[in-house]
């Protein structure tokens, strides 16, 4: 029988007016990878904050037993001293400092307050070797990719003598290769006896690495499953998370595809900072009426750059190529003109590029189409509210009122708000860049339904996604990109994860 390293017993945590956790139990065995699953807002992060001391002892009820000792953490430092280290979804590295400085930040190797650089560099080298990162300890963190940064975070945790590593959505911003690396690393550390808790929305990853899992729903622990014994598969997990069978993860749709309404020809874009580098190289694509066209590619393949350069030259320099819309050549010299001519772009970075979090929902929804609610220069506030209210109902944005601040909504509802904004601008062509990133399964389904409805209305949809099942489930046709070029075009019938992956890693043919 394996030992239990962590036991959280009937944890209850209340915020003013909301019971975030009620009687949650969690048991993690020594040397296992334990997955924590649940929809957004189910209480996973809150539970981990209780565990790591972000919410100090006394602000919750229930007991935490770690290594058979009752723990009452007052802050993160105390939990880290015991060997509980959490790696957050948003990496907490300082870009301008070196890898070594980051790894020992707040934990410096020093004598009398003076840092021992030799020792620091040596230890860093050892740690980097352990996590399989071939970089000099003196490389600045800003100069390495996200995948490598994630490895630095893990090295940082190792430097703290971690016994229980908590990873919150560790692969959310990683491409397939880096994710694979990271998961292998986790399995390797498990071999050395480290325990881990992994929060993830990527069910295939959980299926692959986890030994057991706990499902949390609406602030309660629903069940704990042993992956092997209980024969857990993805459908089983989803059922537990949403509390119902989700037999079909992608809504039914009978595509009604018409004539070609949008074409991009020989599109070439240079990198804004490195004038000689082509970010997009001679890309041509087309979209037909009512069609959902996917764009697959690894991170850095140039998908977002392609979308943004088309959308009113919001990215890149020295852009060349032709855009033909409804049979006529058009120019989008800036975003304003692109929107006026029926384009919409839903950014992958919802908070950074999509929303104004401090403004209310109605202002966010109407921002791209103020002309529609204005007489001359003056906004009709009543009309604005009515329109926003319509979209709140239509897209089922869960909020008491459109006067709520955008920042108060959950990820899925924020995404619905962004979609509302762009549907309200009445585009013919919608470019959706990772529209379901960081959104729970239930909300994803709703977003898919919205996308299908838009296609059924005769709009053309370009769907950029890193989740291959999503592309396979939603698209009529998929373009695959690598290194700024299109390396393949696959119809729904031919498409499979394997074919997409093959094109995604295919080197471009020069000529």
């Amino acid at each position, binding site marked *: 029988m394996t030992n239990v390293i962590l036991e959280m017993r009937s944890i209850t945590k209340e915020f003013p007016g909301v019971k975030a956790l009620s009687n949650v139990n969690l048991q993690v065995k020594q040397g296992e990878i334990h997955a924590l699953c649940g929809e957004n807002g189910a209480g996973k992060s809150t539970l981990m904050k209780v565990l790591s001391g972000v919410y100090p002892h006394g602000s919750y009820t229930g007991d935490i037993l770690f290594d058979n000792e009752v723990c009452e953490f007052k802050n993160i430092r105390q939990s880290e001293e015991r060997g509980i280290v959490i790696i957050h979804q948003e990496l907490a590295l300082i870009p301008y400092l070196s890898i070594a400085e980051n790894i020992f930040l707040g934990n410096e190797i020093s004598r009398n307050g003076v840092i021992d650089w030799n020792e620091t560099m040596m230890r860093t080298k050892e740690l980097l070797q352990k996590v399989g990162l071939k970089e000099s300890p003196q490389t600045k963190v800003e100069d390495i990719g996200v995948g490598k940064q994630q490895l630095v975070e893990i090295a940082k945790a190792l430097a703290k003598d971690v016994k229980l590593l908590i990873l919150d959505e560790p692969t959310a911003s990683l491409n397939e290769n880096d994710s694979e690396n990271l998961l292998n690393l986790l399995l390797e550390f498990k071999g050395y006896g480290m325990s881990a808790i992994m929060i993830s929305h990527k069910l295939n990853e959980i299926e692959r690495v986890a030994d057991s899992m706990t499902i949390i729903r609406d602030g309660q622990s629903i069940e704990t499953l042993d992956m092997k014994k209980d024969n857990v598969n993805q459908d089983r997990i989803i059922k537990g998370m949403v509390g119902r069978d989700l037999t079909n993860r992608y809504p039914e749709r009978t595509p009604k595809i018409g004539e070609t309404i949008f074409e991009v020809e020989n599109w070439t874009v240079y990198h804004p900072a490195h004038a000689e580098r082509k970010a997009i190289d001679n890309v041509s694509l087309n979209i037909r009426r009512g069609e959902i066209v996917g764009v697959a590619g690894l991170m850095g393949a140039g998908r977002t750059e392609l979308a943004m350069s088309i959308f009113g030259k919001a990215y890149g320099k020295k852009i060349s190529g032709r855009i033909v819309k409804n049979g006529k050549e058009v120019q989008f010299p800036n*975003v*304003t003109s692109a929107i006026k001519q029926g384009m919409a772009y839903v950014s992958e970075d919802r908070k*950074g*590029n999509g929303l104004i*979090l401090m403004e209310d929902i109605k*202002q966010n929804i109407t921002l791209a189409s103020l002309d529609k609610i204005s007489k001359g220069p003056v*906004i009709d506030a*009543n009309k604005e509210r009515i329109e926003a209210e319509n979209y709140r109902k239509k897209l089922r944005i869960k909020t008491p009122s459109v006067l709520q601040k955008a920042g108060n909504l959950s990820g899925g509802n924020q995404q619905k708000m962004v979609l509302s904004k762009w549907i309200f601008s009445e585009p013919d062509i919608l470019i959706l860049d990772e529209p379901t990133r960081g959104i729970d399964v239930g909300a994803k389904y709703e977003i898919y339904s919205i996308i299908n409805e838009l296609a059924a209305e005769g709009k053309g949809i370009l769907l950029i996604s890193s989740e291959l099942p999503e592309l396979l489930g939603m698209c009529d046709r998929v373009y695959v990109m690598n290194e700024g070029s299109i390396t393949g075009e696959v119809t729904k019938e031919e498409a499979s994860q394997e074919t997409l992956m093959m094109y995604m890693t295919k080197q471009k043919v020069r000529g």
Partner: protein
Amino acid sequence: MQSHAQKERNYSSLQPESPIKQLFKNNMRQYSMIFALIVIMLLFQVLTSGLLLQPLNITNLILQNSYILILAIGMMLVIITGHIDLSVGSIAAFVGAISAILMVNYEMSTFGAVAISLLVGAAIGAWQGFWVAYVKIPAFIVTLAGMLLFRGLTMIVLEGKSIAPFPETFQKMSSGFIPDGSAANVVTLLIGAALSVALVITQLKARRTQKKFDFDVQSKGLFMLKLVGMVVLLNVFTYVLASYEGIPNVLILLGILIIVYTYVMKKTKAGRHIYAIGGNEKAAQLSGIKTKQMTFWVFVNMGVLSALSGLIFAARLNAATPKAGNLFELDAIAACFIGGASAYGGIGTVPGAIIGGLVMGIMNNGMSLLGLGIDWQQGIKGLVLLAAVAFDIYNKNKAA
């Protein structure tokens, strides 16, 4: 499914709070500012044994603070876009000097000189806006350079000396009253009454349309109370002014600026664009807002208002001096932050800037009446600025 229904119920349970509590919750920031202003006013009213709210002193207060308030309006726009302007005091001084040279040395007509001065202000604003919006140099640096540059230019064109006196028509801009006749009192009272009627009509109309669209409105009693309160306040104010010399010209100008800018920021697309840029420039740009162009015009606007402020200050002083406008920028910036602007952009209102400006102005005036030295005044003002912003952040943290 069940969980969704449960959530819906939770939301609806938020609604039935007592209306007064709701009102205060939603407008906490606004009310706390007004409340602070009233407390400071009453405090100095008591400390100065009633001197503060004498008709003469109220008129003085308006005349003394008009140029800061004008700057604060422009500064609020700059701060909402997420920038800052340190050069406004120097621009005011420079434009004042230009106007003096035009009117005194070249004997140009008041109208022509004022028009040229405002254009100079616009050109200076365009100069700074260009560097901030298109070259993307941080506004702090551009306007710090502007502060030095235009202070230097002021001293150069004035050759280190003051120029005086201005023609009488120009002085009237700042020191005149409406109308300059024996019937001043009646006209002032009439203006107060006319404004009251306009206020009541617009408020009633707004409430009626809100009701028509089935939006939640304040309870009738509360609404009437607020309306009556505003009308009484307005008429007491005009009565007090009438019992001295009437409404100062500069107050009319200020009133128009406040109304126009409040309207622009609250009701127009331009205002919405400015808030959006400050809230999230990238998102604003990807929503089709011409962020660079808008930022540029916000600085042009600041230049024009700095010029106006400089003219009014010169007219009040009846001289253009090399030291004019010294530290005006800091008073204007302080007014905005006391009035609820966010240092990160995206948040703030024009009435807030005015209230913040009045807090500063009343403290200046009150402390001077008490005979406090400039040393103590500076120190106390600094603490009040810090306290106001600390209070604001405390409130926000509590709300979150």
